[in-house]
């Protein structure tokens, strides 16, 4: 009595059953793989966007740390950088090199750096005056800072990376007259995509130099 029952339970799959099982497994597997791949891609895009938003926020904060107390934006060269008159400790409304900060845009490296004069602390007043020169409004601030850099008296810090491009726009005729301007930044998200952001820069203490 037991034998036929055992034989039935030992029966293998028929070809149709096997093909059906394989087909269902393949369909299910493909569906699951598609869903998971889409989810993974979506997560990657989301993570990259999140990172870009955080970087935009950081970039905005770092720019503002300089521009909020600043006096004036002195010059801008597309693809090169922005010159900021940060402070006027002598209150003489004249610009000396140590009062200037230059934001350099290095599109090839994808960074924005800020450079300032950095003189030895033990210099006397006369030596300092030789290097910390007063600059006329029409001076080439970029060239002056580069000359100082060649002598080894500047310090540079990176304030942003992953930057494909950064450009400054403002309303009105001259940059110096404006108490505010806008930096439009293109952030590199990955090899193929970028994201645009902007940061408004305002100088409540705006003063034009003599």
């Amino acid at each position, binding site marked *: 009595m037991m034998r036929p029952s055992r034989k039935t339970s030992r029966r293998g799959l028929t070809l149709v059953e096997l093909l059906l099982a394989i087909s269902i497994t393949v369909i299910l597997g493909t569906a699951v793989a598609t869903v998971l791949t889409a989810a993974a891609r979506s997560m990657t895009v989301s993570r990259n966007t999140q990172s870009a938003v955080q970087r935009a926020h950081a970039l905005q904060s770092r720019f503002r740390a300089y521009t909020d107390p600043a006096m004036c934006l002195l010059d801008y060269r597309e693809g090169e950088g922005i010159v900021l008159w940060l402070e006027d400790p002598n209150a003489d409304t004249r610009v000396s090199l140590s009062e200037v900060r230059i934001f350099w845009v290095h599109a090839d490296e994808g960074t924005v750096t800020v450079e300032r004069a950095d003189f030895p602390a033990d210099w006397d007043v006369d030596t300092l005056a030789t290097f910390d020169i007063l600059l006329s409004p029409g001076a080439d601030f970029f060239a002056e800072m580069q000359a100082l850099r060649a002598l080894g008296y500047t310090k540079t810090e990176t304030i942003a990376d992953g930057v494909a491009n950064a450009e400054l726009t*403002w309303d009105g005729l001259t940059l110096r007259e404006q108490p505010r301007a806008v930096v439009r930044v293109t952030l590199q998200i990955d090899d193929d995509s970028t994201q645009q*952001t902007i*940061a408004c*820069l305002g100088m409540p203490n705006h003063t034009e130099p003599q």
Partner: protein
Amino acid sequence: MRKSDPSRTRRIVTRSSRRGLTLLESLIATTILSVVVLAVAAALNASQKLAYEGRQRVMGVNAADDMMVELMTVPYAELKTYNGLTQAPGAMATIDGTAYPETYTNIGRSVEVVAENITEPGMGITVAGVMITVRADDGDHTLAELSAFRPEPQS
């Protein structure tokens, strides 16, 4: 009494373990798999939603902060003209008219400028000025709200 053949018993057990799945077992397995996949998908979806909301909030803070920075540079006498300024999502622009990039499409903002006197009780000083409030929103919810007092300039 008949002795059992050990090799025969082993063969029967082995053969029995090779039997296929019943329909019920298959259905249970499929159901469990579906529940697991659905749970994972739901978790991923929730995580994406949270990440999106987080991004919106950061961008809301950026947008509100931008407007506040601009208002701090506007001449004091003109500040009240900005009271009630509203920029709907997708229509944000700087005070000078620069449009915001596509990234900010879902964010709008509004400005409130109210005259206010702040009294410092310890020193007995009252400072006249305006309280500026900037709100960023996504059309339904407030994403960020910033307030700052700007004192009236002394002539």
